[in-house]
């Protein structure tokens, strides 16, 4: 059961990851710094999942990116694009709605 529980917890985390990434990237970050930022708020996600996700979001037009050589290191920086911000608003609205629905179920159960 613990394996299945872990899989369900992972699925739950993956579900909110896009929200978390779009929010976090309102400030320009590169891959590794984004991971540290998410870890700092207790969102621990595997790097092998996070970095490909960032690229996918960029391919959807939700993020802008640029290469930069800071401190002698080449880094690819990402930031939420205009389209990304609009998508984020929609997703956040959905999230609020789901949260309210879940709170109602937890309190009163389904009738």
């Amino acid at each position, binding site marked *: 059961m613990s394996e299945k529980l872990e899989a369900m917890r992972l699925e739950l985390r993956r579900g909110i990851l896009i929200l978390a990434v779009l929010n976090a990237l309102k400030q320009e970050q*590169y*891959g*590794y710094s984004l991971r540290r930022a998410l870890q700092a708020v207790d969102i621990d996600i*595997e*790097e*092998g*999942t996070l*970095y*490909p*996700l960032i*690229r*996918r979001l960029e391919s959807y037009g939700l993020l802008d990116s640029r290469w930069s050589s800071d401190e002698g*290191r*080449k*880094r*690819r920086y990402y930031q939420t694009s205009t389209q990304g911000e609009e998508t984020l608003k929609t997703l956040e609205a959905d999230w609020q709605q789901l949260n309210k629905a879940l709170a109602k179920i937890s309190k009163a159960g389904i009738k």
Partner: protein
Amino acid sequence: MNFLGKKSPLDRYIADVKSYLPRKNRDDIAEELRANLSEKLAERAEASVIEMTTDAQIKTLSEFGHPLRVAAEYQGERRSLIGPTLYPFYRMSVLVSLTVSTCIILLLLLSELIFRVDLGDVSRVWLFVNTYIYIVGVITAGFVLTERLMERHKYLDSWQPNAWDHSNNALVSAWGALISCIAAVTWLVILNLVEIDHDLDTLIGRNPNPIYTLVLWSKIQMLVLIPQYFHQIFNQAWSRNRLLLRMFSELILTQGCVIVLFSNAQDVLLNYPDVPPSMATTFTYVLWGMIVVTSLSAYSYWHKLTRIALRR
């Protein structure tokens, strides 16, 4: 001595991930991955105060994920040729087809070998159709079995660089190996369309038709090559054993061409009286060409082997 040769663990890891990625964006993804992983290794090195050992670097990279899994994540959402809705029907179709194919092939073999019943064209057509069904079924079963074995033995749960440095040549990639495997299987299917006696006389060039000898040696070469290509899909490293097997595969066909050339090459006209006499000369030249090409190929594998031995 650093068993990885000149390349660092990070270089080897990036090369492994890159080999599993499609050509489009491959270099860009590799560069970005290198930047992020360099930061991770640097941070670990700072935390540990002393310089990270090769093993510590490998462990850190392994925690990131097996290159095959990482590459799969970069290729987007899960894709499958056949989705979950139809998958049970596909699986049943493959199982039924394979079972029916196997039974028909066994029946045909029994009827011809034991009962000496000549089914003529019926036999040939069925063999042709069944061979294709069988190949598709075997390939599907092969991949299913491979995936199960990988899961059971947790093959993708960690990463270790291969003992031998593999070429960064883009051609030597997992996709190239898959294409080679399919081409070799297709060639074997085509060779099977030629009805020959699989006996010693044909093997040593005593068969009246020299083409049959060449076909038999080609079949043997394909049977040795196909498993190697299949293995190379999952492991592209050029190990000593792989180089030896490849050299051996080339020498198989060289041997066949030599036997045909020095035994019965001229008899090709006796078997095909409608072709012009110049074809016999052309056939001889083709055989010489094949001997040269396969010998050079075998020599190139031998040369790589000696270079690896010297590096040790």
